[in-house]
C-alpha cells in the first residue's frame, strides 16, 4: 500500500539524514577513537537507509532506486523527524541527539522485527545489533558529560534545552504509522513512548541530569514534510551531483 511506502520512506529518511549529520564529524571529532565511533554510527545508519530505500523502491516499482529516493526528492517530500535534521552543535548536542534517537529506534526495531512484513522485520532484526551499540555508546556519553565537569554538564543542559522540543514528534503517530500498525503487525508508538521515557529517565538519573518539565511545547511536522529550515541546506549539498548531472551512473 502507499502508506507502507510512506512508512518505509520515513524509516529510511530518518536513518539517512542522521547519518548525513553525523558524518559531518568525520575528521573533526574531539578525539580519534570517537571520530571513528561517530563515523561508524553514520555508516550503520546509511546502511539501514539503503535497505529501507531499496525496499521502498521495490514497492514503488518502475525506475525508482535507492538513489532516486534519496537524491531526487525535495524538502517537502522527506518525512524524517525534525530531531535528526538539527545541526550537530557541540559534542553534547550530537551525543544527546543520538541518544534520543537510538533509544527510539531501539524500541521501534524491537517491535518491527516481529512485523508480519517480512522485509521490514528482516531489516529491523539485522539493524538491531547496530542500534544496541549506538544506544550504549550514546548513553555512556550522556552520562559521562552529564556527570563530568561543570562545563560538560552545562553543555549537556543546553543541549537538552535545544533538543527536547523535538522529541514529542517521535510519539505522535502520523497517518502512515497508524495505517501500517493496523494492516501489518507494526510498531505501537505508545509502547515505544513508555519504554523511551523509562530509558531516558534512567540514563538522565545516572547522568545527574534533570528531566525537562512535562509542559514543554513539542514541535512537529517532519513526518508530514514540514521541516525546519535546516533540511533544505542538507539536501542542497547532499543532492548536488545527482541534480547537476542527471541520469548518470556513479
Amino acid at each position: 500500500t502507499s502508506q507502507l511506502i510512506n512508512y518505509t520512506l520515513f524509516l529510511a529518511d530518518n536513518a539517512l539524514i542522521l547519518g548525513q549529520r553525523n558524518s559531518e564529524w568525520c575528521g573533526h571529532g574531539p578525539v580519534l577513537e570517537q571520530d571513528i565511533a561517530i563515523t561508524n554510527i553514520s555508516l550503520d545508519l546509511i546502511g539501514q537507509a539503503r535497505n529501507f530505500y531499496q525496499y521502498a523502491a521495490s514497492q514503488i516499482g518502475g525506475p525508482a532506486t535507492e538513489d532516486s529516493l534519496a537524491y531526487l526528492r525535495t524538502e517537502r517530500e522527506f518525512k524524517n523527524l525534525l530531531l535528526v535534521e538539527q545541526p550537530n552543535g557541540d559534542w553534547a548536542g550530537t551525543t544527546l541527539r543520538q541518544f534520543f534517537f537510538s533509544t527510539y529506534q531501539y524500541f521501534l526495531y524491537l517491535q518491527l522485527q516481529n512485523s508480519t512484513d517480512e522485509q521490514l522485520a528482516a531489516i529491523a532484526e539485522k539493524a538491531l545489533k547496530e542500534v544496541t551499540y549506538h544506544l550504549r555508546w550514546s548513553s555512556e556519553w550522556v552520562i559521562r558529560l552529564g556527570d563530568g565537569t561543570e562545563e560538560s554538564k552545562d553543555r549537556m543542559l543546553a543541549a537538552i534545552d535545544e533538543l527536547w522540543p523535538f522529541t514529542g514528534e517521535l510519539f505522535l503517530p502520523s497517518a502512515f504509522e497508524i495505517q501500517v500498525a493496523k494492516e501489518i503487525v507494526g510498531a505501537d508508538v505508545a509502547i515505544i513512548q513508555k519504554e523511551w521515557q523509562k530509558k531516558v529517565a534512567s540514563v538522565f538519573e545516572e547522568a545527574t541530569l534533570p528531566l525537562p518539565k512535562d509542559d514543554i511545547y513539542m514541535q512537529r511536522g517532519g513526518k508530514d514534510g514540514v521541516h525546519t529550515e535546516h533540511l533544505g541546506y542538507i539536501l542542497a549539498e547532499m543532492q548536488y551531483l545527482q541534480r547537476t548531472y542527471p541520469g548518470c551512473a556513479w
Partner: protein
Amino acid sequence: MQIHDLEKIFLDKIEREIKIEPRDWMPDAYRKTLVRQISQHAHSEIVGMLPEGNWISRAPSLKRKAILIAKVQDEAGHGLYLYSATETLGTSREETINDLHSGKAKYSSIFNYPTLTWADMGAIGWLVDGAAIMNQVMLCRTSYGPYARAMVRICKEESFHQRQGFDILYTLSKGSREQKDMCQDAINRWWWPSLMMFGPKDSDSTHSDQSMKWKVKRMTNDELRQRFIDMIAEQVKVLGMILPDPNLKWNESGKHYDFGEINWGEFWNVVKGNGPCNKQRIAARKKAWEEGAWVRDAAAAYAEKRKAKAQKTELEAA
C-alpha cells in the same frame, strides 16, 4: 655492556632480518628517525581524512557515500595504529599531535591539494593511495617490529582503497562526456603531486642513506617512484585516459617508462607550507583538537570519579 657492544647486537639483528622490538636497545638516531617517520605517517593518515572527508556530504550515490565514509574511517584507524607505534618508542600521542599543530612535524604534502570534484575521490584512491602502497608494502619489511606489523594491517586495507578509487574513475570513464572530462581533469591535477609523494630524487634525499642501512627503508625514492609509474602507465590504458606527461614513454631497453621532469620547485614550496591548503588543513585539525578539549576533560573527570567510587566500594567491601 658498552654502547659499542649494544650497537653491534643491534646491527647484527638488522643484518639477520630480526625485528627490533620496543624494549631492545637501539641507537638514539634510529629511534629519532623512526619517531619522525612514523609520526609523519600517522599525521598523513589523519590530515588525509580532510580532503576526502570534504566529499562525504556530496557523494553522488548512497553506495559511494558508504564506501567513502568507510575509507576515511579506515584512515583514522591507521592513524591510531601508527600513534600506538610511536608510543612504543616513548613518545605520547599528545606530544606527537602537538608537533603536528605547531608545524614541527610534517605530513604528506599531497593532502595540501584541494579536492575539487567527485573524480578527485577516484584519483586519490588510485594515484595517492597507489603511491602510498608502494611505500607501505616496502615498510611491511621495515626493521622496527611494531611499525612493520602496523604496516601489514594497513597495507591490506590500502590496496582495497586503491581498487575502489580505480573503480570510481572507471565508472566515470564509461559515463557521460562531462564525467569523462571530470575523470581526465582529476588525473591531470593529481598525477604530478602523486609522483612527488616518493620524496626528492635519491641524489637530493637527506635521510635516505642511513634509513636504508638500518633497513627502515628498503628501497630508494627513485626505485619506488619508477615502480609506481610503470604500474600506473599500464592501468591508465584501461581507463582510456592519458597521463599529463608528454615525455612519458616505454623504454624498451630499460624495461620501464621514461618520464618528464618533476617540478621540484612546487614540491619544496608545498613542503615549506605554501600549498593551496596547508593553512586550511592545520587549522581544521587544530580546531577539532581545541574544540574537543572540554570533551576530553569531561571524559577524564568522569573516569576519575568512577575510579574513586570503585575504590571506595572496594574498601567498604574489604
